[in-house]
């Protein structure tokens, strides 16, 4: 059991290390979450006796690829979308009229769109800062959502299906290969194939 003084230390440690970098935990939590969910789903496929072996040979690699591609495409696609939105708001390329008016008044409008310009560093009244912040959050949240939908729901399914269908073809070809009966026996003894042949009832795959 964690003692109260230790729990306070943990809470303080969390505040010091993660309060300034919220993106870090989103990525770490996402990666762990996908890996765990994938492990649970693979076990669900293996222990489902209604799914025939032939289909399991597609579904297990599909689920495995789902987690791997999701992590990679999240990094590549979602992060690009978020980075674009952050830069657009930060450099003032996409801006609210009230903020633009304020910057023009203070002779800073020439810097708008400059990659090194950062509006968040400009001193401005509290109400205007609030206005800029919600615009920034809105742009960021919209871009991240579009990026995640694109990466998780469009790119990942195509890539995981591509990988899984190749794996299924390879596995079926190996098992049904008439030239190498000895190799076939070896294959059947391997743990990979024992995963697919979990249920004895199915007779779809002819070996």
């Amino acid at each position: 059991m964690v003692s109260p003084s230790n729990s306070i230390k943990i809470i303080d440690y969390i505040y010091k290390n993660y309060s300034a970098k919220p993106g870090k935990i989103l990525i770490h939590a996402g990666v762990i979450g996908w890996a765990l969910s994938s492990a649970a789903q693979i076990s669900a496929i293996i222990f489902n006796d209604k799914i025939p072996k032939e289909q399991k040979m597609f579904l297990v690699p599909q689920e495995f690829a789902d987690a791997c591609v999701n992590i990679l495409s999240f990094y590549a696609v979602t992060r690009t979308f978020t980075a674009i939105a952050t830069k657009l708001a930060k450099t003032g390329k996409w801006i609210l009229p009230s903020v633009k008016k304020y910057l023009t008044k203070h002779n800073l409008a020439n810097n708008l769109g400059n990659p090194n310009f950062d509006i968040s560093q400009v001193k401005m009244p509290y109400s205007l800062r609030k206005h800029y912040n919600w615009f920034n959050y809105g742009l960021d949240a919209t871009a991240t959502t579009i990026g995640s939908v694109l990466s998780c729901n469009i790119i990942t399914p195509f890539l995981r299906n591509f990988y899984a269908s190749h794996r299924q073809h390879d596995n079926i070809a190996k098992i049904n290969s008439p030239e190498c009966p000895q190799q076939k026996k070896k294959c059947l003894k391997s743990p990979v194939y024992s995963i697919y042949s979990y249920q004895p009832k199915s007779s779809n795959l002819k070996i």
Partner: protein
Amino acid sequence: MSFSLKPIGNIADSAANRIIKIIPSVTFSNKKVTGVLKWAGKHLSSPPSNRFILGASALMSQPFIDLNNKRVDEKTRKVSAARTIAKIVAGTTTGVIIRWLCFKATKSMAMKPSKSTGFLRSLLYPKNTSKVTVKGLTHHKMFLGHLLSLGVMMFTNFAIDAPLTISLTNKLLDKIDKKEKKITNNYFKKYPYYSSIDEFVAKSKEVNNGISK
């Protein structure tokens, strides 16, 4: 050997820098657009609603991608689409509920200690840190919410999601089987040359062997 995703992140950042140069400058004067952005900033960034949006959009795209996967046979396509639907429904339902509960719990347990707040309400508030900012505290609560939901989902992924996916997949597969049987039966009623599907398959094999000889 260590594996790092940093290079992918760097590629994404440099791609973003290039894309930004092409994007035209825009001043958002339309109130409807700014209203949508304000709503998005408030609602889309919350993890439960984010999970819901991802789940709903997944349901609209992933089963159709599975059904149109021409690299596999029809049976695999159907089983894969059924499992995808079951997985999305099970994952989104539990994901939204767990995230909502965990974030609500951490939010109400990280209040600034005062006479009115009890021990439990200020349990997760950083006590020995010299300066606690509003922004820092928001991120702190967010982190704890993620941490708690991740811990809970370690168990629910196996205890709820996986069995629920199995049961929903099997229900969908049963429905598909029933529908296929109905179509086959209707076909044999309409064209009574064969008594059953087995006889039809046997006869067509005979015909195929004859052709190949």
